[in-house]
Structures are given as C-alpha cells and as structure tokens.
C-alpha cells in the first residue's frame, strides 16, 4: 500500500526540494504580467500625450488687432442690419484699409499679399459684431481678427524664416508685414473663438467643430430614441416571454451575428436601403442615426439580456409564487433590477456610435457642409467624420485642429462614460 501512495514524510521532502524552482517560475509570470500592463498603459499614455500636445495648440490661434472705423454707411448701406444689407456692405475693405494703415504695403501686389494676412472671415466677423451691438456704429474700435493659417504656422515656427523664400509658403514681404504688426504689439496668441463655434471651413483658421458637434448630438439622439426602446423590448421579449424554440433561436443567432458584422457593412446597408431604396436624402442625421441605431442594437440587446439574465431566478420565483402575472414580474422586478446593466450597455453602445466613422462615410455624412444643422433632416456631419476629413487636409494647421477636435470628442466620450458610471452607481441600490 505504501508503495503506491508515497508516505507523507517522503512527500514532504520531495515538495520541499522542488519549491525554489516553482517559486521562481511564479515570480516570472508575475513580472511578465506587470510588463504587459506597463506596455499597454505606456501606449495609452503616449497616445494621449501625442494627441494632447498636438491638440492643445489647436484651441489657440494668432490674432491681429486692428482699429476699425464702424462706418454705418459702408457696413450697413440699407441701414436695417438685414443680412442682405450687411452682405452688400463693404466691411472687408474697411478692415483692409485699417491693416494697410499699419503695414503700409506698396503697390497692388503688396496690397494683395497684405490682404491675405487677415483671414477671409473678417467681414462676417464685423457683421456679427454690429448685429450684436449696433451702438458700435460710428465708433472706432479695436477689433481682433484671425490671421491666415500660413501666417499662423509661421508665427508658431513651423514655417522657418531660414528656409529659402522659394520653398516657403509665405514670402519675405509678408514676413516683413508681420514683423511690423508684431512691433506694434498688434499680434496676439489667444484662445480661438472659431474652434468651438465655427463649422466646417476650407480655411483652417476659421474651421470649427460646432456643426459636427451638433450633428453628432442629433445623430446620437436619433440613434438613442430608436435603439434603446427597441433593444430593451427585444431583450425582454427574448429572455422573459418567448418560448425557446426555432424562431427565438434564429433571432438569437441573428443578434449575435449582427454584433459581429463590421460597421462598414451597416453603412453599406444604410446606403442601399435608406438612401437608394427609400430615397432619403444623403448626409442627414436621421439616416445616420438609424444606421447607427441598427449597429448599436445588438450591443444593447446583448447587454440588456445579460442584465436580465443576471436577475436571480429566485426573484422571479418569488414573484410568481405570490401570484404576480408575467407582465408584473417583468415590470415590477426584472426591468428595475436589470436597469443599471441595460443603461450601461446602452451608454456603451452610444459611445461606440459616437465614435463611429465608417458607416457614416458611406451615407454621405462626409460631405462638406458649412451650415450648422437645425434638425435631423438638415444635412450635417459628425465629430469623428469631421476629424477624418480634417486629418486628410494638407494644411498644417488642420493637424492641430484635428487633434483639438479629438480632444473634444474624447471629452464627450469620457463624460458619457462618467455618466454611465454615475447612473450605474445611482441605480445600483441592489441591497
């Protein structure tokens, strides 16, 4: 008998002899684990660092301060502050004159160069100012104007003075003008008022994310309104009501498969169904939201089902046992208990939708749209698509703008996740 099972003393000795080796194996695995986590965290930090360092300057830009003579006649010829009247006005000339008075360009050519220093949105800016405050008329006020993106890049040092003029995007003359402005202390580096309030623009110095931001919110609202009720209802139906038979099995497999379908495909479907067959307009948040809703639906359904399944069967038994009907069990017990999980799943799905780009490219939300959408039927774009577009633009300044937009997007995402955590904490009075 003792031959078969080693006797305890021998066993103890054997174990003691091999223990060092086993221990060192153990510490090795631990070390590897640490290194892996360290690497992952480093990646993350590096990514954030690089985005942030690139994006931070994107919130700022160079301005030039000019003395503007608010001459009503010239700015608002009809005198009624209407768009037409302001459009007919001659605000840009006034700005240019003011600029010329400082940098004193000589000749047409130089004047032309000088005009370009100030971003082309100057007239709009003046129009906006007088609209907001008509009392400006008749005064001479100092007004800040964004500088052209090349000048901006130059001031930031991306375009070097040392580079030969021929390889530079701005010539020596312009540099001279800038120096002059600088001497007079008219150039300042400030928080950009375009990045948050502007919308898409070919001029990087005037490009902003407001349009995309609003577009994102509209799209997301559509997505939420469709996906959440549908998702929860489906989950409840599948988990609580449906008999387990062929049909529910098919539905189940379907949902799992939908979750695995790459997002581009949803875009293709949106393109083919909503736009091509139903003839809905392109680029509108409604279609985007619907596509995203279909895409997030599986996420919501799956997490809701998991949440419902996590509700202990004993609670259902208890309720049935006391004579609650199926619907009462569902609405009194299952849904309230599963709500935190459902909400978390939904918010995660929404976050996914918020960051999603590819399917929206398919349905044309990539179009260049200057107007800020007012409703889900107005064409618009969304933040990630905006980022995608900007990332493609050649202008140096767009890199910063892109990064800045990314920061905003991430901020948006983080607050959504924070909301998820908060909601879960608040609802999770599971006792």
């Amino acid at each position, binding site marked *: 008998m003792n031959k078969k099972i080693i006797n305890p003393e021998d066993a103890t000795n054997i174990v003691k002899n091999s223990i060092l080796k086993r221990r060192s194996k153990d510490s090795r695995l631990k070390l590897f684990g*640490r290194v892996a986590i360290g690497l992952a965290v480093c990646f993350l930090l590096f990514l954030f660092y690089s985005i942030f360092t690139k994006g931070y300057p994107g919130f700022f830009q160079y301005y030039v301060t000019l003395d503007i003579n608010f001459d009503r006649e010239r700015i608002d010829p009809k005198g009624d502050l209407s768009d037409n009247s302001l459009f007919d006005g001659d605000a840009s000339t006034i700005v240019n004159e003011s600029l010329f008075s400082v940098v004193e360009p000589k000749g047409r050519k130089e004047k032309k160069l000088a005009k370009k220093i100030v971003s082309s949105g100057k007239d709009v800016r003046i129009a906006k100012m007088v609209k907001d405050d008509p009392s400006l008329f008749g005064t001479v006020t100092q007004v800040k104007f964004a500088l052209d993106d090349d000048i901006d890049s130059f001031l930031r040092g991306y375009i070097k003075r040392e580079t030969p003029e021929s390889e530079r995007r701005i010539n020596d003359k312009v540099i001279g003008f800038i120096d002059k402005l600088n001497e007079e202390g008219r150039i300042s580096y400030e928080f950009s008022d375009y990045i948050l309030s502007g919308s898409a623009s070919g001029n990087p110095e005037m490009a902003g994310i407001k349009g995309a931001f609003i577009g994102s919110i509209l799209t997301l609202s559509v997505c939420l309104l469709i996906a959440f009720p549908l998702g929860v*209802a489906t989950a409840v139906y599948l988990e609580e009501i449906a008999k387990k038979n062929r049909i529910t099995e*098919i539905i189940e497999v379907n949902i799992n498969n939908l979750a695995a379908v*790459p997002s581009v495909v949803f875009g293709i479907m949106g393109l083919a169904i909503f736009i091509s067959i139903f003839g809905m307009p392109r680029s509108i948040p409604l279609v985007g939201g619907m596509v995203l809703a279909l895409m997030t639906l599986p996420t919501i359904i799956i997490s809701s089902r998991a949440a419902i399944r996590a509700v202990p069967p004993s609670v259902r038994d208890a309720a049935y046992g006391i004579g609650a*009907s199926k619907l009462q069990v569902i609405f009194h017990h299952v849904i309230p208990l599963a709500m935190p999980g459902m909400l978390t799943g939904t918010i995660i799905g929404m976050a996914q939708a918020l960051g999603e780009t590819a399917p929206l490219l398919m349905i044309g939300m990539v179009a260049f749209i200057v107007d800020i959408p007012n409703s889900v039927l107005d064409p618009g774009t969304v933040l*990630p698509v905006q980022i995608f577009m900007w990332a493609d633009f050649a202008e140096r300044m767009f890199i910063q703008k892109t990064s800045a937009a990314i920061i905003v997007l991430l901020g948006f995402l983080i607050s959504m996740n924070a909301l998820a955590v908060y909601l879960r904490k608040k609802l999770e009075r599971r006792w």
Partner: protein
Amino acid sequence: MLGYNRAKGLVNLNQKNLHSLTHYYGIFCLLSALLPTLGVFFIFTICDDLVFAELVKEYIPNEVINSKDYNFTIVLAQINNSVEGLVFGTPPQWVTNAAEIWKSWVIKSNILTMIVCAITILTSGFLSYKKIHSEFRSRNAVEKIVMTILGVSSVIAILTTIAIIFSVVFESIRFFALIPYDEFLFGTVWNPQFEGAERAGSGQEGLSQYGAIPLFAGTFLISIIALCVSVPIGLLSAIYLSEYASSKERAFFKPLLEVLAGIPTVVYGFFAALTVAPFLRSSGSMLGLDIASESALAAGLVMGIMIIPFISSLSDDVINAVPQSLRDAGYGLGSTKNETVMKIVLPAALPGVVASIILAVSRAVGETMIVVMAAGLAANLTANPLEAVTTVTSQIVTILVGDQEFESAKTLSAFALALTLIIITLGMNFYALHVVKKYREQYE
C-alpha cells in the same frame, strides 16, 4: 381614464367580482384606443404621398410626358421641391401649379387624418369601454397587447439582417454579372477604374481589374500584426489583473485599459497616420530599412493596441468568472499561483479566452478607419509589413465615399467585398460560439 372610472364604478358595485386591478382597465382602454389610431395615422401619412404622386400625374402636361427624357421621378422631385419652397431657377408654370394643388391636398389630408384618427380613437375607446364588466379579464388582455408589442420589436433584428443580406447580396449578384466570381476571388490584381472610362468604351476596360486576393492578404497581414501585439499583452495583463494584482491595482488598471477600447477608431487612425507611421519611417531609415509612409506595420501596431482591451478585459472577466472554489482547491493542494493560473484557471477559462481572441480578430478584420487612414490604398500583394497594403474595408470606403452610380462595376465591387467580409466575420463568430459551446458541454 374612462375605463379606470368605470372599473371603479364596478368596484363600488361589487368589489369581489372584479377580475383585475382597476388600473388595468384604464390601461386596457388607453391601449385599445391608441393603438388602432396610431396604425391609422401611419397608414395615412405613408399613403398620402403615394396617392398624391398618382394624382399629380394628371397635372403634368402631356407634352412633358411625351417628351423623350421624361422621368417621373425627376418630375416628382421637382414638384416636391417646389412644395417645400425650394426653388431652383424658374420652374415651368405647370410645376408651380401642381405644387399648389399638392399643397392643398396636404392640408386636406391632414384634416382628414385628424378626423379619421379622432373617429378611430372614439370608436375603439368606446368599444373597449363597453367591454369592461366585472368578468372581463383586462389584465390578460393588456398583457397580450404588451407582449405582442415586445415580440414585434424583436423581429427588427431579423429585419435588419434581412436588409443587410438583401442589400449586399443583390448588389453583389449584379457585380458578379459584370465580373466573373473567379476573377474576383482568385485574381491577384485589384485595380478598379473610373466607370466613365468603362462606359465610354474607350478601349481601356482592360485596365479595370477586380482580383480581391491582395485585399484579403492585406487584411490578413494587418490582423496578424495586430494579434501579435495584442494577444500577449492582453492575455498577460488579464492574468496579472485577475490573479496577481491587489484589488486596488485591479480597480485602477482595468478601467484604464478599457479606455483603449473606448477611443474612437478614427482617433487611432489619426494617431497611426500622423505619429506612428512617421516614427516608424524615421526609425526605419535610421536602421537602413525603407518603410513606406503608409505601412501595414503602422496600421497593424495601432490596431493591436486598439484591441488589447478586447482581449484583456474579456479574458479578465472570464478568468474572474472561474469560481473561487477552484482556486481554493488549487491552493488547498499546495499549488503556487503560477500553477493555479496556468493549470486550473486558464484551462477552465479557455473557451472564454478563445472567444475573446476571436472577437478581437473579427474586430481587426472589420476595422476600417485605421487602415483607411494609415495602411494606404495601394493594393499590394505582399507579406512585407513595411510596405503599404490595403484592406477590404478600406477599399469599400474608398469606393463608396462620395456620389456613386449604382450601375458601375466599381461601385458594385464594394458590395461584393462587403459580402465576403460578412461571410468571413460571421464564420469567425460562429466558430467562436462553437468553441465556447463545446468546452461548456465538456465541463458542465
């Protein structure tokens, strides 16, 4: 409300005999009044445009109908634009007229809808109100209605799938009508061309080639690179987090890693294109390697980072789901942590781990933005990670972004690509589920 009151009334008459709670009668009335009305409303709103479209034909002058390039859709669009006040140039008088008449119809139909709705709401409300008596099982009726609503919504999932399959398959069939499928599946050159050239029959058709092999090779290459990055890091992190880390460490690092999953792919794409690729290129040139500015390596690396949390978080979850009792058993027998993890916990969690990896793979295969932005568009058939490659998804995007005509082979090729993509990812999904199921059967 009425139903509630009536029920209340009945309660007063005879409490005991009432079958269900009073508010069920109220809800029943509400539902049975509202649902038909909603149905009617939808039918009206959907139908009126169609009806009007038929009716408006009368107002289109014959000469227009008879003209050569008559297209009812375009004409209808013109009229619609005019109705909505969008005026491009000066439309013909008859269009304006038609629009005017259309407008009047809209008003009439709105009024009609309102009236019909009101009637439905009243009749069905009244009928249901009539139904209320003490024996009526309103709770059961309400439950049936609500359950039907829930059931219908679960059908949406199927509809979506059908929609996807229809949209993709039909267009693919059209594509394969133009391009033989063996060329698509086995061709080694991917070079879709402008349809304009094709159509013109300018003898340049030969330039257009739809061999998908390079795309799949690129997809494969990038996925492999991504997995090489993410599997070891993800798995080891998961093991460390679930077995070695203190609860504080775990509470700190796990969400931190999950942040990686929450970052939108377009951000990764941007990062890959503007930070990683240049970095690789410069460090490559320092080593004397020629790395393309858009390389598979850059895209793969970044994608690998992106899918780390899919592996680490999911694996961590499944590892944690391994019951503590198994660990206790291991420690109770005198296992070290290493032995407990490697010989007990991991094998037990294997199906979940495998599933998480497969999920990560299908993510990688379906991932679009990173490759669009960082891997390039050159359909190279290469195994060299330092060159630019393209992937299925990025081709789909490139082809379909912008306005396109649905007749051209180039546009349609995107659908064929999508079809193959779906088949591949679904295959992986099925396989993952199968693996999980198999293990579960074995050990439960």
